[in-house]
């Protein structure tokens, strides 16, 4: 029993080591760049789910002229900022304003764009200036300059702010009337308004800021040098102007608006939406399934090991088991994911791929729950069963395997099925560290087409379908075990 236990532990550790090792090797040669793909015209996903926009075009062109490779990580603004400061990513380009505060941690390139903060309200709103906001609610997006600006004014003008993780949710809150206004980058809002966002801008750009590409202070100096050199070249040869025009010029936005209007017929139907985003959704779904299957396997092994540790008659192992369960059941999944993905690398200095960080997160969290019910299931077997087996001369391990576990497992099966379903649902939380699973895919699609209700309906239905399949599968296995 003990030998098997040790062997299993080793196998488990080796599995992780291989996962981590393999992935970091692949990434060693290219620069990983974090960004937020819900930020048109700077970064967004086009209808082929390719990341485009001013920032994307700039960095790609510069990479080509300067001869380096990049890998775009569409993780959202917050995660991108944290990812660069923790060393997960090499740089960030995401319409990021250069500020004193940020310069403490980051080193910025020569500015590549100038923009200010404007206020937008619903089309029929009679709010015209900051003064009208007294007692009202204002939507902002976390970590953006617009949020900083709004927060600096809220005392003076007497409004409250509510924070969203991406632009779409922020705009929607204003459109539905929950919030009276939102603050965002003027270029972004201008682009949105002209392409049919359904909000109107009521203030002049304020708090003018400059956008820069950033790396962690003192790191990736070569990358920074190449970016600056490349940007200078593009400005000289006119390519820079072309790119800006391409995304903000009258022709670009009106074309996009027309496209949006034309597409509306298609986008207004579920069938049209599915047809249009079929590829992206399928990729997201596949990632969700991969995450679910791998985490269920890892969490189940981990949970059973920790659960068994908790029933071995040894104070140390019981204490260890209780502590593991206490910590990882107690930590919110979101905190655990961010801690493993951003916190641990800044401590150890080595990167963890998001997928692996996601698996580790789910393994620890779901595994802790599994351990708790494995322990509970074994404890629920009458202690007389163990005593009778031991009285015959069977060792603890044999008694456990032949007598107690088979009875305990029957008690645990419903909990296992339940935990599998929870694991599947919890994969959606991993969108926070930028894993392109189903939920994150939904967010990105909505950032482009603003069809929140329909897209979330489609995503919800897909989740229900796979949960149903998973449940049926589990029930089938349950029946086979019970027979």
């Amino acid at each position: 029993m003990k030998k098997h236990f040790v062997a299993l532990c080793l196998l488990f550790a080796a599995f992780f080591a291989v996962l981590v090792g393999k992935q970091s090797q692949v990434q060693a040669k290219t620069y990983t760049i974090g960004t937020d793909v819900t930020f048109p015209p700077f970064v967004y996903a086009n209808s082929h789910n390719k990341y485009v926009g001013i920032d994307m075009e700039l960095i790609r062109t510069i990479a080509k002229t300067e001869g380096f490779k990049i890998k775009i990580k569409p993780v959202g603004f917050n995660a991108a900022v944290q990812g660069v400061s923790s060393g997960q990513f090499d740089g960030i380009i995401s319409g990021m304003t250069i500020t004193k505060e940020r310069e403490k941690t980051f080193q910025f390139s020569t500015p590549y764009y100038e923009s200010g903060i404007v206020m937008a309200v619903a089309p029929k709103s009679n709010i015209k200036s900051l003064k009208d906001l007294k007692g009202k609610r204002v939507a902002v997006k976390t970590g953006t300059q617009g949020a900083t600006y709004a927060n600096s004014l809220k005392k003076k003008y007497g409004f409250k702010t509510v924070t969203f993780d991406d632009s779409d949710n922020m705009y929607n809150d204003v459109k539905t009337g929950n919030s009276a206004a939102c603050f965002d980058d003027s270029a972004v809002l201008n682009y949105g308004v002209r392409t049919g966002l359904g909000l109107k801008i009521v203030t002049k750009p304020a708090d003018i800021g400059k956008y820069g590409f950033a790396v962690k202070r003192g790191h990736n100096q070569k990358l920074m040098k190449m970016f600056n050199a490349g940007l200078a070249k593009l400005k000289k040869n006119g390519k820079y102007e072309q790119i800006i025009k391409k995304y903000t010029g009258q022709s670009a936005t009106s074309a996009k608006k027309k496209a949006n209007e034309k597409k509306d017929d298609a986008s207004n139907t579920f069938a049209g939406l599915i047809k249009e985003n079929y590829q992206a959704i399928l990729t997201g779904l596949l990632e969700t399934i991969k995450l679910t299957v791998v985490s269920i396997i890892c969490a189940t092994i981990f949970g059973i090991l920790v659960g068994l540790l908790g029933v071995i008659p040894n104070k140390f192992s019981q204490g260890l088991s209780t502590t593991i369960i206490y910590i990882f059941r107690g930590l919110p999944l979101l905190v655990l994911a961010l801690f493993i993905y951003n916190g641990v690398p800044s401590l150890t200095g080595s990167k963890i791929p998001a997928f692996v960080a996601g698996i580790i997160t789910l393994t620890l969290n779901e595994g802790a729950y599994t351990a708790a019910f494995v322990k509970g299931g074994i404890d629920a077997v009458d202690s007389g069963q163990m005593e009778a087996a031991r009285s015959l001369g069977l060792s603890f391990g044999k008694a456990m395997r032949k007598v107690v576990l088979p009875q305990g497992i029957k008690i645990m099966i419903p909990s296992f099925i339940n935990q599998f379903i929870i694991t599947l649902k919890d994969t959606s939380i991993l969108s926070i560290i930028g894993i392109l699973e189903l939920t994150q895919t939904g967010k990105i699609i909505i950032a482009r087409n603003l069809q929140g209700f329909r897209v979330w309906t489609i995503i919800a239905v897909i989740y229900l379908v796979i949960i149903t399949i998973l449940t049926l599968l589990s029930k089938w296995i349950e029946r086979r075990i019970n027979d």
Partner: protein
Amino acid sequence: MTNLKVDVTNLKKNFGDNHVLKGVNFKVADNEVVVLIGPSGSGKSTLLRCLNRLESPTSGKIIIDGRDISDPKTDIDLARQNIGMVFQHFNLFNNLTVGENIELAPVELGKLSKEEAAQQGKKLLKAVGLEDKFSAMPQSLSGGQKQRVAIARALAMKPDIMLFDEPTSALDPEMVGDVLEVMKKLAKEGMTMVVVTHEMGFAKEVADRVVFMADGKVVEEGQPEQVFDHPQNVRTKAFLDKVINV
């Protein structure tokens, strides 16, 4: 004394502040049947469970078959193979059939092959009068049947000594006889037995010696007639009065 099966000297057992055994001396000879009686909470079960180290003693010495059970270095699993135990609540393995209950230990411990164990199982079931229950699940048996299977299961390891902790107290009265019958047969075949029971009739008929425990100590012991008919200690008298009046 070479024919001493059990030799317990100055055994003490505490559960925290609760001093349950306060220096017990207890001997059992080869082929002897000892019945252990005493009021509830006097420590009978605890003594019995110390004999195969289901409880580890606080201090004192326990020798069974020459093996020092109280020594933590003793391979207790090996020692237990020779010490059968029958519990008040049977504790049949609920996930296994009657036959598998009996076969499990000999097969797992490498004593018998699967076929040999099955053969032995059928023989043992026949001896306890349940040959038709080989493939039944424990849940389908009556209490008396369960306890007879439990005895067969303990015997499957061919122990030198059998410990019984109130084997009939959880049974309906009409089932008690069947179980006692099996135990009597076992005694006649020369099995060394330590039996905790309130069945005074059984004690009188089968026991070589009756040991009366009270308050964590052996208070009185002797041949059944002597203890039952002429108890020397007041507590023995008080206890017997109560039991017989019930």
